[in-house]
């Protein structure tokens, strides 16, 4: 493919107003309802809090991963969206806000924090070198600090490149990403194990980290797609960005939707087939008291429908259909997290069947608010395109 030295014609524009106009009210509603929820029903609020945390980690940490992936793979087509992903990674900084209430309420959520239970349970006792509050705090803080350092490094390098246009930065970023990748793998596995898997401390599944990662990738990509479409329609991006780029985004969402199903099926099938009580007990509560409909629904909502939405080539190129699919994938991820977390709420609180009410809605509103407001904080008055990136011209020239 030949190269054309097109001059990049980037005009800086303010963010669309919607970010604050919708973001702030959602955030305030979320905070208020979360606050009330913690007064009324602290246990249910804590579990919802975990769902929100897992979602925000997916959106934020997933975005940092997307940035690193581009650097390490030397990908070209995604260069125009890297800055958006970097700003999206900024949302990761909201995680302490969501993690703190959980850390203070661990007794309500995690059975392994109950000393009397742990002492009398040989399996939990055996796990206590890993599952104990101090180490849990240490891991959470460690993950946050390490990943934030990477986030700021990427942001700084990228912003500097806008003016220096240095090719060296691109190379350094690739090296940084090589260090980032294994750390990310450990971090996301730990997030999954600590916050979600240890809700049922007896249960274990080696694939669990990868399961969460599959959903994370699709969700981060979906948020990135939505932001891109929004900014594009507002004229914040370059006119050269077109269906070819959208196609790649849609393709990745599609691939990771299928990948999620692959992980979910592998986990379910192996446990179902071997039929060992140490493992099956995790699926049993998800097959009774109304949860069975949600479990079957998960297959449709998280796999079949988005798969169908994105299967066709045109639907990956058409912004409005892509937007629908992206929204759907984010919703499906929330649904998935709900399905992972809430059966334990039933067990801990003695309730039966799935619950849904204003508390759940409040926390979803909180998550949405965080995404919008933090993105606004990160991206306002900034360039939305890495205009100094040496690969940008090639990226704009990209054809499938």
């Amino acid at each position, binding site marked *: 493919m030949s190269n054309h030295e097109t001059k990049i014609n980037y005009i800086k524009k303010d963010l669309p107003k919607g970010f604050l106009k919708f973001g702030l009210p959602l955030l305030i509603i979320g905070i208020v309802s979360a606050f009330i929820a913690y007064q009324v029903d602290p246990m249910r609020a804590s579990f919802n809090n975990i769902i929100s945390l897992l979602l925000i980690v997916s959106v934020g940490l997933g975005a940092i991963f997307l940035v690193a992936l581009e650097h390490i793979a030397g990908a070209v087509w995604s260069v125009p969206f890297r800055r958006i992903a970097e700003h999206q990674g900024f949302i990761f900084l909201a995680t302490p806000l969501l993690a703190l209430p959980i850390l203070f309420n661990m007794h309500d959520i995690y059975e392994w924090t109950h000393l009397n239970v742990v002492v009398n349970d040989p399996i939990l006792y055996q796990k206590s070198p890993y599952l104990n509050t101090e180490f849990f705090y240490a891991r959470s803080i460690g993950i946050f600090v390490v990943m934030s350092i990477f986030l700021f490094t990427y942001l700084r390098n990228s912003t500097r490149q806008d003016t220096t246009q240095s090719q060296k930065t691109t190379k350094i970023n690739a090296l940084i990403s090589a260090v980032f990748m294994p750390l990310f793998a450990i971090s996301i596995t730990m997030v999954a194990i600590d916050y979600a898997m240890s809700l049922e401390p007896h249960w274990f599944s080696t694939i669990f980290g990868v399961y969460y990662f599959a959903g994370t990738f699709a969700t981060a990509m979906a948020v990135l797609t939505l932001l891109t479409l929004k900014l594009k329609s507002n004229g914040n991006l370059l006119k050269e960005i077109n269906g070819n780029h959208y196609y790649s985004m849609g393709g990745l969402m599609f691939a990771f939707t299928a990948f999620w199903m692959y992980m979910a099926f592998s986990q379910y099938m192996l446990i179902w*087939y071997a039929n060992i009580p140490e493992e099956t007990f995790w699926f049993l509560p998800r097959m009774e008291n109304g949860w069975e409909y949600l479990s079957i629904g998960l297959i449709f909502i998280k796999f079949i429908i988005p798969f169908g939405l994105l299967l066709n080539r045109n639907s990956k190129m058409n912004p409005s259909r892509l937007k629908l699919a992206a929204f759907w994938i984010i919703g499906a991820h929330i649904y998935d997290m709900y399905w992972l977390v809430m059966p334990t709420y039933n067990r801990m609180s003695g309730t039966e069947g799935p619950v849904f009410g204003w508390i759940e809605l409040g926390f979803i509103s909180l998550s949405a608010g965080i995404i919008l407001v933090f993105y606004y904080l990160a991206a306002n008055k900034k360039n939305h395109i890495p205009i100094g990136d040496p690969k940008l011209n090639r990226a704009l020239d990209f054809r499938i």
Partner: protein
Amino acid sequence: MSKLYSVAALFKTPDDIMHAASKVADAGYEKYDVNTPYPIHGMDGAMKLKSSKMGYYTITIGLTCMSLMLFFMYWVYNIDYPQVIGGKPLFPLPAFVPIMFEITILTGAVLTVAVMLIFYFKFPNNAHPLHDSSYMKAVSSDKFGVNIEAVDPKFDLDKVKAFLASIGAYQIDEIYFDEEEVNTKHKILDSKFVIGMFLIAGFTSISVYLHMNKALYLPPFDWMLLQHKVTAQDHSDFFKNGISSREPVEGTVARGFMPYLYSEDPDGASDNLVNPFVADEENIALGKKKYLTYCSPCHGDLAKGDSRLNGQFPNGPTLHSDKLLSWTDGRIYHVITEGQNVMPGYKKTVTRKERWAIVNYVRKLQRALDAKEEDMQ
């Protein structure tokens, strides 16, 4: 007889051919084709072709075959040969998923290619007029060509040539073909074809027969019978008497068999045998059944000695005589077992338990005709 197939023009660069293709399409020709050594991006746009629909075949074929496979597995497990395997339900859907998936991929891939090659391309077809022409040789390697067929409604030899020259062709050929050679319409009753079909049918039948009945024939699983050991009642040269089995040690008793010790000793039986069974309802019912079967023909239904045989056979005596009333259970049991006078022994036909049950029943009958004071309470 040679006939004109088309006018073929060669171009040198991909840009030229793109330009030429869109010009030809714009000029309103329908029966034309562009031949290039590799697919050129955007050519379907230039030729104004509709986008390919192959994907729909794949989805349709794949999903259909997947459903058929699912139904087949359901039929096997639930209808044809229901069998629980590995504690799984009869319709273990998760275990079917891998096979359903593989079938979808297999049929989707193979049949899509088949549809494309056979129905879209009408392949194999090595008798096309273009084959072996210098034009074909050029476009297969490094040139780009357009050919406009003679059957196009707008076709006019000179005009087409001029038109192709005007859009930048550097070489223009006329392609002729021999109608006989490329005639692909075969008669269905062509003798060679019919003989060929018969040969194929015969070959297939014979090979399937041989395969299924000879190559794959396995005898029923009988290897357990074919063991190197001596079976009971067999001949054996090892022992002097030539019999494989040995005689048991003196005094050996078969399992479940209780020897009768008083066969010549009615008094011994009378003194020593005690009825081991309690005359409960079940036991009496058994005794009644057996009595009516074996005893009543001679002794009568109520044991009064009123035989149904009406003297055709020596009448059995009544069992209500004083002699009988004074006998012990063991004595009666002895008579049933060994017989007395003309009465045969019943030890071969009536089991020990049944004989004792008959004794109990006889006692009950006797009691019925000779009730005691305490029975009134």
